[in-house]
């Protein structure tokens, strides 16, 4: 069948600059560039280009430009994406697979929220000269504290629950070894350890050679596939996360295609090489809140009640009621992943149409738990499209204890959001298991970039806090007085629990 699909990008080669060095051919895993023997020059097939910009960055002569190609007559209803998808499906009959987070045009609530600053009536603080506290504790907090004073000592008598201590309210989100390369996985682990925060193994297990070194900065996941899950894996961790859902694909499982299950992936996940690693949609031992409770306590048992247990869900319509159930089931931390959250592979229909924005989900969960008097029973981590330090600050003011960053962390490592993770051919060595591609990412350099991002955002958060006259992130948590909405309707302000700008 003749394909009717048009190229998505056009490769523009400056013939005067190009000296046919073939670097672009070597850099492109999608076979866009090739050497034409007859014409004796490097040529390109634009129709294969995914727009990852690898060749542009690595062209020693700056001879390349990759530009999006919008060919159809502009139509705000029959948008180009729909036309392309229909043609693709007419030719294949398959579910459209994609990756990363939702890129659809929907209201971004972060962009409709503004932050406050001190003027006259209370002084702002200069973070360059005064201490600013970003240290965050995640886990269950007691209902009350019994304190005993003696002559020269103060002692807390109440038995405290296990808590995680992190130096900034930013953690790396769950991304499995399998979805991302070993080098990308390790980059994040090194950065988290160095900065004093945590990374999350996703559901692909933890490579044996990393267990000892990174056990204090790893949140290990227990998902429906139970891949690479053994008692040692649980005990070599800072905390355990039960993954119920994911923002990029709420309600469905996942599968790592057999061709990505290489020898090392297979030994980490403990499944044979080349078989699909299928994660069922539900955990088949969890069909209710009571069942969830059973798994939470099973995990507390296997780790001798020494680690907090986190439960991660996708932000969906009844998220507040579900969150309440999760806390009552014994979750010490709840993680909420918004519909902008990324993934290594998802059906496009799930990515674009299922779930709700994390801003609204977070506000309603925090509100609900406060109303029920159980907010202290858990910490809240939100993720799914946190793009900058301002998003972090707004999330915390809306009630989050900390945020997960996944996509942003990968962009720091080199990702350009070309949304081709599911092909396994990531030109930047991040979302691939091809050794020739994954070696493009040096874990030391990757860790430095990820560490720098944490540092930069933390500095920015301190700046904003100082401007608000606050010297500890603790004082901002759930402090919605510091937020105002613009361009929002009455119901949106109500759900967010904030006033409109000027009110």
């Amino acid at each position, binding site marked *: 069948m003749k394909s009717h699909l048009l190229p998505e990008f056009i490769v523009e080669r400056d013939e005067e600059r190009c000296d046919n060095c073939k670097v672009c051919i070597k850099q492109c895993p999608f076979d866009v560039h090739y050497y034409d023997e007859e014409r004796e020059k490097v040529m390109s097939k634009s129709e294969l280009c995914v727009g990852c910009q690898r060749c542009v960055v690595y062209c020693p002569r700056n001879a390349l430009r990759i530009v999006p190609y919008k060919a159809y007559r502009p139509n705000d209803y029959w948008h180009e994406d729909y036309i392309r998808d229909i043609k*693709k*499906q007419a*030719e*294949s*009959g*398959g*579910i*459209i*697979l994609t990756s990363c987070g939702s890129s659809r045009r929907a209201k971004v609530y972060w962009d409709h929220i503004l932050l406050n600053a001190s003027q006259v009536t209370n002084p702002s603080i200069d973070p360059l000269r005064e201490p600013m506290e970003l240290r965050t504790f995640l886990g269950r907090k007691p*209902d009350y504290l019994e304190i005993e004073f003696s002559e020269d000592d103060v002692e807390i008598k109440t038995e405290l629950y296990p808590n995680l201590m992190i130096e900034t309210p930013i953690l790396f989100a769950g991304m499995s070894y399998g979805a991302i390369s070993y080098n990308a996985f390790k980059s994040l682990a090194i950065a988290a350890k160095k900065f004093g925060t945590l990374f999350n193994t996703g559901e692909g297990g933890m490579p044996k050679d990393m267990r000892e070194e990174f056990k204090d900065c790893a949140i290990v996941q227990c998902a*429906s*596939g*139970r891949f690479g*899950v*053994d*008692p*040692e894996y*649980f*005990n070599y961790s800072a905390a355990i996360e039960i993954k119920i859902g994911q923002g990029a694909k709420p309600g469905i499982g996942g*599968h790592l*295609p*057999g061709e990505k299950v290489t020898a090392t992936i*297979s*030994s980490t996940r*403990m*499944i*044979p090489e*080349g*078989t*699909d690693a*299928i994660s*069922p949609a539900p955990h*088949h*031992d969890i069909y209710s809140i009571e069942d969830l*409770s*059973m798994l939470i*306590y*099973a995990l*507390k*048992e*296997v*780790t*001798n009640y020494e680690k907090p247990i986190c439960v991660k869900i996708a932000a969906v319509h009844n998220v507040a009621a579900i969150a309440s159930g999760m*806390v*009552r089931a*014994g979750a010490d931390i709840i993680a909420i992943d918004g519909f902008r959250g990324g993934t290594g592979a998802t*059906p496009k229909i799930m990515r674009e149409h299922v779930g709700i924005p994390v801003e609204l989900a977070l506000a309603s969960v925090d509100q609900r738990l406060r109303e*029920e*008097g*159980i907010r202290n*029973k858990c910490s809240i981590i939100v993720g799914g499209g946190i793009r900058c330090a301002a998003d972090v600050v707004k999330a915390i003011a809306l009630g989050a204890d900390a945020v997960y960053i996944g996509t942003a962390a990968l962009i720091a490592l080199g990702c350009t959001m070309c949304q081709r993770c*599911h*092909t396994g051919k990531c030109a930047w060595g991040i979302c691939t298991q091809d050794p020739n591609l994954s070696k493009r990412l040096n874990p030391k350099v990757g860790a430095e970039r990820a560490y720098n991002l944490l540092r930069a955002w933390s500095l920015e958060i301190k700046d904003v806090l100082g401007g608000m006259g606050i010297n500890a992130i603790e004082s901002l948590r759930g402090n919605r007085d510091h937020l105002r909405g613009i361009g929002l309707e009455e119901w949106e302000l109500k759900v967010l629990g904030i006033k409109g700008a000027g009110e």
Partner: protein
Amino acid sequence: MSKLRDPFMDNVRKIENIAKAVKFEGNMAKIDARELNHKELNDLIRLCVEKGAEKIILKNVCGQRYIGTRLFFPDKKVEIEIFGTPGNDLGMFMNGHKIVVHGNAQDGVGNTMNEGEIIVEGRAGDVVAMSMRGGRVFIRDDVGYRTAIHMKEYKDKVPVLVVGGTSQDFLGEYMAGGIVVLLGLNRGKHLANYIGTGMHGGRIYVRGKLEKYQLGKEVGIVEMEEEDYKKLESLVKDFLIYFKGKGLDEKLDVDEILGEKITKLIPVSKRPYGRIYTY
């Protein structure tokens, strides 16, 4: 502030206040579980192992969960004998210990178990051997729904489940490895439907009458080979050793059991859902 009730943690007594439930006899410990809740019993079992007990006998067990779960000691292997009815998730995540239940068990026996052996002299509930990764589970009678879902294997680490009776629906769903045997003793036909739906690894042996409509789309029937009979013979031998004199028909023997028709089920593909996507 409303008090949040916690069925697991509320009123858990300190270990020194319940220690009288334990009696040591050499390297054997006996625990009377009559008045202990889930966590208290497991606290005591852990204490026994830490103090060097190699065999632990639990009396009057009634619904306490996670027995065997809190025993992550890479260098220690113990044996636990249970009188009564253990609660859900018996031996969940268990790592190399042996548990014998003189009675029935509830849901989740051997859930995500790593290594070891569980022997149940009776029946067991739902989700038996779910996501099991290694070790062996023997159940004398029947099991409930969703048995051996997503069991998986890696190289020589192959989990085994042997059930004397039959299972309910969704047996071996998503199964990715391991061996499941339904012996179908004392019954006319098997009841389970949707056997092996989404299966992409491992094998299921079913002795006795089985109709095609009871199978999921992703499984196929293949001929029994000599290797299969060899494997089954050793498993059935162990089954008889474990349960003869423990309520099993004394006249049963290996030849009689393996003389009946046995259906071997394996997945049609290692990649059942590989062809429904387009990039």
